[in-house]
């Protein structure tokens, strides 16, 4: 396709970054920078400057803390994955965190009323879908900008949550619900699943390469294919082994990954997903080729609603309670949109990936987690988290081969 002789290092880098696999690069880079800072640089600095320190305590990178980090980021990640879908359309959802709150509150009330946990989950997921779809309809059919509709949703759902939870909070003891965050996947099963996934990827890639050759299509470069597999395998086994080293993979994390995989597949490999990207890239073009732009928009908002409900369930399970401040009142809203954007999803639509949202959520989660370990004052923590976030993202931007800017 091109004369590789002419390709410099920076070109190669640029090509790599343009590949599907390369889209992970910036956020992985940011994550690595933050982990390096909290996990290595900071303890080393402590060790060198505090003469009485006996040894380098790498708490941040300890399996236990990584376990915490995953669990702490899970709700943000769940919402961010959902929000990514509407961001792909060029829309925004400010109400996702409040929707999660309403769903969690409803969940609490339902199990309190004696409903079995699984039934309550099914109901709140349906409710979440309806809440999302209702907003989607206002956006798609009435034509109000999504920012305004979901801002109204944010207010309304915050109120609704308070209505459902008059005392502001409710404890959740249902064993099924608590189990979601408590049940651990046996060590061996976790490894087996990871192995299965990697083996599946390899098989699919080989079959694909074979079929492409048969169809006379250009081959994917082996470096890209094997690089991608190697990366996934490293991340996957790294995560499973680390989690196993502390406890095991929690069911909640497994569920999150499974849901994200499903949504990732839908967004990249089905006509529906293609139409989401098309609408985000050029809504008028999508309309003109006969896509039902309105229905797509409603469906996307229904998906955020579902993901918000799932986030609500995860949160209720993990917090052991439903409280107004954990969902609607807090910073969840900005953090989950931030996670999606840090993951590289454009606010203008048409570019992004649900997987990156999970990495973005880890970036956001790591800031809070790492700073809490650092023992700084509240003010310093906030200032640091701003600075570190900026640095981590800027490092990537600066390292990017020069182009025509943004």
């Amino acid at each position, binding site marked *: 396709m091109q004369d590789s002789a002419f390709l410099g290092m920076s070109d190669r880098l640029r090509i790599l970054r343009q590949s599907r696999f390369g889209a992970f690069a910036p956020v992985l880079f940011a994550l690595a920078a933050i982990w390096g800072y909290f996990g290595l640089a900071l303890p080393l600095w402590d060790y060198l400057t505090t003469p009485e320190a006996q040894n380098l305590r790498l708490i941040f990178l300890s399996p236990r803390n990584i376990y915490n980090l995953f669990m702490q980021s899970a709700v943000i990640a769940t919402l961010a994955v959902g929000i990514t879908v509407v961001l792909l359309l060029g829309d925004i959802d400010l109400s996702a965190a409040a929707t999660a709150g309403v769903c969690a509150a409803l969940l609490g009330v339902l199990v309190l009323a004696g409903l079995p946990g699984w039934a309550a989950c099914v109901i709140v997921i349906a409710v979440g879908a309806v809440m999302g779809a209702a907003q989607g309809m206002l956006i798609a059919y009435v034509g109000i900008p999504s920012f305004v509709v979901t801002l109204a949703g944010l207010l309304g759902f915050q109120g609704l949550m308070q209505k459902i939870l008059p005392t502001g909070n409710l404890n959740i003891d249902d064993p099924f619900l608590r189990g979601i965050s408590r049940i651990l996947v046996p060590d061996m099963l976790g490894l087996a699943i990871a192995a299965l996934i990697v083996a599946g990827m390899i098989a699919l890639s080989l079959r694909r390469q074979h079929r492409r050759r048969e*169809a006379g299509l*250009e081959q994917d470069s082996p470096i890209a294919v094997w690089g991608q597999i190697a990366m996934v395998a490293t991340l996957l086994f790294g995560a499973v082994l680390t989690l196993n080293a502390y406890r095991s993979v929690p069911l909640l994390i497994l569920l999150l990954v499974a849901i994200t995989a499903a949504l990732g597949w839908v967004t990249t490999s089905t006509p529906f997903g293609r139409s989401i*990207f098309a609408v985000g890239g*050029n809504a008028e073009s*999508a309309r003109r080729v*006969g896509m039902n732009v309105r229905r797509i928009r409603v469906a996307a908002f229904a998906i955020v609603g579902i993901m918000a409900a799932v986030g609500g369930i995860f949160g209720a399970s993990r917090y052991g309670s439903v409280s107004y401040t954990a969902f609607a009142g807090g910073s969840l809203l900005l953090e989950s949109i931030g996670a999606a954007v840090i993951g590289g999803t454009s606010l203008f639509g048409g570019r992004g990936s649900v997987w990156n949202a999970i990495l973005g959520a880890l970036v956001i989660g790591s800031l809070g987690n790492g700073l809490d370990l650092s023992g700084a004052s509240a003010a310093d923590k906030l200032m640091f988290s701003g600075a570190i976030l900026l640095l981590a993202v800027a490092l990537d931007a600066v390292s990017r081969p020069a182009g025509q800017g943004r």
Partner: protein
Amino acid sequence: MMTASTTTAGHQAPPTAPPTGAGDRAHLRVSGIHKHFGGVHALRGVDFEVARGEVMALVGDNGAGKSTLMKVLAGAHVADAGTFHLDGQQVHVGGPKDAAALGIQIVYQDLALCENLDVAANLSLGAEPVRPGFGFLPRLLRPIDDLRMEVKAKRAIDQLQVRTLKSVRAQVGGLSGGQRQAIAIARAVGADSSVVMLDEPTAALGVAQTRQVLNVVKRLRETGHAVIYISHNMRDIFEVSDRICVLRHGANVATWRTQDTTPDEIVVAMTRGLEKEVGRAG
């Protein structure tokens, strides 16, 4: 050359071509189409028709309303007034989906591509082939058969001889003007249809590619399609068209059989209208 009937042209009913090409044979016929954009009255009661196995050229000055008429036919704009007939049956076109369902395909002047998607995806946009064996899923959620999509795209591009476009996995955002246009053309002519409308399809194309498009148009005619061809290039128009419809200021001027007219006559009709008009514009 002007006959008595043409003196009634202008904003009134247009002189249609001789009876042989008239109403009964028409595959797609619209009449009395009006379209406003805010204060701009872009179409003022336009009548238009095209038969199967015919290439109808639509010409007119810049801003005459050609693209607007095409968009109305394709359902991209909804007309303020006017009727649609397909094979004599009145039909309703409320959106692009309706038009596509009626077998109407179009190359828009502004191409209507998604820059964030690759060539293959743009070529199948809205009609992605899905893998067999997933019948239990709703169509929109079945896996896309991307191999088939790429093969189809490759073939379509090759046919138009755009040799510089090497990969169907290149993002459309990085393509040259001609490469993009080729993709838009390939998308429209590749789909099942009975009416194909091309709005200045060769504006950005090179000499060889233009030739291919003209060949494609002729082939479409031979296979019984109704083809509408918009262009400012008189040579191309006289090469491929059977009839020529002239629009001016959003209204019909007249329709000629190509063999009965000359480029000069058409240019005059486009820019100055027919006799009466000339007097007025003078």
